[in-house]
């Protein structure tokens, strides 16, 4: 695997190269001398770099302040940690959290890699695919190779570590999950005498019924860039099966993909499936009050229904995501959920690990304060109990959310290319223009293949 970063030590002249080689040699000698002396740190060794995965060498440790990068939402976590751990010296830096794929973190790390300094110790990111570049860039420290005990790591929900795992090594900790469930309006369902659909077939049938009996009401939205993650992912559509650090299999024309695309087309055509993004102003103005059902991630409840739509208390309920009838293994999709990364260059590994463990597992934060469904299962229990005590929801949301937490289909990979923006740029405009999604599946595949190749992936097309 080659990383296109101009190495700082690389010089063009032969003389420079030999000097660099001499320095590297003396570095290696110094390192082995340190190792022979029983592994005291310091001693002039220029450690702190990881090449390929696994050969992690920790940087010389010091007791300076711990630098933590968080987004605005996670600022509360860092402040709470500071309050409960007054002896730890913290340097809290607020940044955009790489939201909307801003690549801020990647850009900064590539600059820090050139200047060989400046890396934060711990970073929160709203993106699940950070390891796809951060591991080859040597930025992230392996967590399950001695830093965090396996017993502690087993507390995370099944599959929560998938985005963080490269070749069996864990490179980040999942902050929250974004498993998909079926949100629905309990009052309307009862009033109209409808059954909450358990299968996609029932869901489609109900959509057709709503189209004739209550036109204008919605059973979902296909106009969002989360559409592939909510529907195609749940339907086990293999749009991006990451098979190696830089290998991907793309197959968007399989039966698993086309069955869901056909369902979406039927409901888009009868207008029970919105063509607008749930975050757009026209959805908020014209359609938010007309939601009967809305498949979506766990955070839709707080962020969308309670926050944006201001749906009154006691109306919104949660059911498990529908499944295809006859499918013995229930699967759901996933939309987001942040991660915490620990820098391989950190000079404060112990303090950084302590913070990392606290912020992802502590009930004080994850159970009581965190806005999203905690990826750490014991904290999730407390979080769910907290949600129940608010009495906002019309039913008990704990069981469906807990079940879905372990059912996220693991065949959907976390590649460097953004599935959301590829879908948004290739499928959404066509759908808005009236083309069926089924007819756009080959174009979707072509775009994924192109983007994956330009990110350096070996691409296999088809099953």
């Amino acid at each position, binding site marked *: 695997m*080659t990383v*296109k970063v101009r190495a700082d030590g690389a010089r063009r002249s032969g003389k420079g190269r030999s000097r660099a080689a001499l320095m590297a040699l003396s570095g290696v000698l110094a390192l082995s001398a340190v190792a022979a002396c029983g592994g005291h740190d310091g001693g002039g060794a220029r450690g702190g770099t990881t090449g390929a995965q696994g050969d992690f060498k920790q940087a010389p440790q010091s007791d300076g302040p711990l630098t933590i990068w968080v987004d605005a939402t996670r600022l509360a976590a860092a402040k709470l940690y500071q309050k409960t751990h007054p002896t730890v010296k913290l340097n809290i830096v607020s940044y955009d959290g790489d939201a909307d794929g801003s690549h801020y973190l990647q850009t900064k790390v590539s600059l820090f890699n050139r200047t060989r300094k400046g890396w934060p110790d711990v970073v929160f990111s709203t993106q699940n695919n950070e390891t796809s570049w951060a591991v080859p860039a040597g930025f992230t420290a392996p967590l399950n190779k001695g830093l965090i005990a396996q017993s502690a790591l087993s507390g995370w929900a099944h599959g929560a570590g998938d985005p963080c795992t490269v070749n069996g090594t864990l490179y980040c900790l999942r902050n929250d999950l974004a498993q998909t469930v079926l949100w629905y309006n309990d009052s309307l369902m009862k009033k109209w005498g409808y059954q909450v659909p358990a299968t996609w077939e029932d869901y489609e049938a109900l959509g057709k019924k709503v189209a004739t009996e209550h036109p204008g009401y919605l059973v979902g939205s296909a106009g*969002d860039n989360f559409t592939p993650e909510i529907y195609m992912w749940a339907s086990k559509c293999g749009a991006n099966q990451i098979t190696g650090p830089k290998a991907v299999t793309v197959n968007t024309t399989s039966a698993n993909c086309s069955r869901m695309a056909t369902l979406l087309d039927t409901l888009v055509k009868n207008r029970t499936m919105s063509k607008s993004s749930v975050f757009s*102003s026209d959805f908020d103005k014209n359609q938010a009050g007309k939601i009967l059902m809305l498949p979506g991630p766990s955070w839709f409840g707080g962020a969308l229904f309670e926050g944006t739509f201001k749906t009154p208390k006691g109306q919104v309920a949660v059911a498990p995501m529908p499944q295809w009838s006859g499918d013995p293994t229930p699967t759901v999709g996933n939309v987001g959920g942040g991660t915490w990364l620990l820098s391989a260059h950190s000079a404060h590994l112990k303090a950084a690990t302590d913070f990392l463990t606290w912020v992802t597992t502590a009930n004080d934060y994850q159970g009581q304060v965190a806005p999203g469904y905690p990826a750490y299962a014991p904290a999730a229990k407390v979080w769910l109990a907290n949600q129940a005590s608010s009495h906002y929801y019309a039913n008990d949301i704990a069981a469906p959310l807990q079940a879905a937490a372990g059912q996220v289909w693991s065949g959907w990979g976390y590649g*460097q290319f953004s599935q959301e923006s590829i879908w*948004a740029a290739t499928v959404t405009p066509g759908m808005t223009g009236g083309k069926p999604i089924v007819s756009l599946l080959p174009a979707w595949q072509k775009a994924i293949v192109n983007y994956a190749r*330009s990110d350096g992936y070996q691409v296999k097309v088809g099953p």
Partner: protein
Amino acid sequence: MSILTIRGGRAGTHAARRRWWPGRAGHGFVAPYVVLLIAFGVVPTGYAIDFAFTDASGRFAGLSNFTAAAADFRFASAAAHVALYLLFWLVSLVVLVVGLALLLHNLAARGVGKALRFLYYLPGALAGAASVMVWLFMLDPTVSPAGFLLRALGLDTFGQVIAPGHLPFVLTAIAFWTGAGGWIVVMYGALNNISPELMEAARIDGAGPWQIARRVQIPLLRKWIVYMVILAFAVGAQLFVEPQLLSQASNGVAGRDYSLNQLSYDFAFQNNDLGTAAAVSVVLLVVTLAVAVVFVVKSGFFDAG
């Protein structure tokens, strides 16, 4: 030594200095600009050219970065998008700016000119990103004050407004609104430089406003128009802020790699490939320079008179 001789000596050296370095005051004034130009213009350009011809480990790579950029699946479409946009933007700029400036010049006599000049200039005074933000509201039929116009065109949602086929118009409208006001003021100034005797003579010869504009004013504005086209071409070829913000506002529906500059940005910060990113910007530089040279030579821009 008396004071007089010292004075005499100083005056002597002054004169001597003036002899071997004439116009040094002018050079002094220009020097800070030259230093800044070298530091923030020439050196980065040289650095980018260096990047464009070297590989990831800093070795000379020939044209491989250029071929990599041209072979990328996004390059041809991005180049086509920019070319189409430039066509729309330059034509609308020349026709509308010259037209509005002539109109303004005619109105000036009636006293409303000052207010209009201020109005035209105002959008240009807004920072680039801020004025695009204004447009994001304007283009969303649900919140736009001009929503009725958009709906009359059959566009009910933001997604429909920014459909890929509409982008050249949308981007031209944004660019025109943010950039044209300044040029109208410049053209107005140029029109004021045309001697009143000349206009008077044309009028006595029986020319109407249209003939004066066509036969007297526009030919005399030619150099200013060429100047505007050269600068607008350079700015337009570097199209970035408008599509980038549209892309973010639409959650990616307006593609992230619509223009060549966005593609270059993607190469640098998405693919971590600075060489290819630099190659794209060098291509833009070469094309812009070539177009400028053609315009300058054909129009006799630097000829006296």
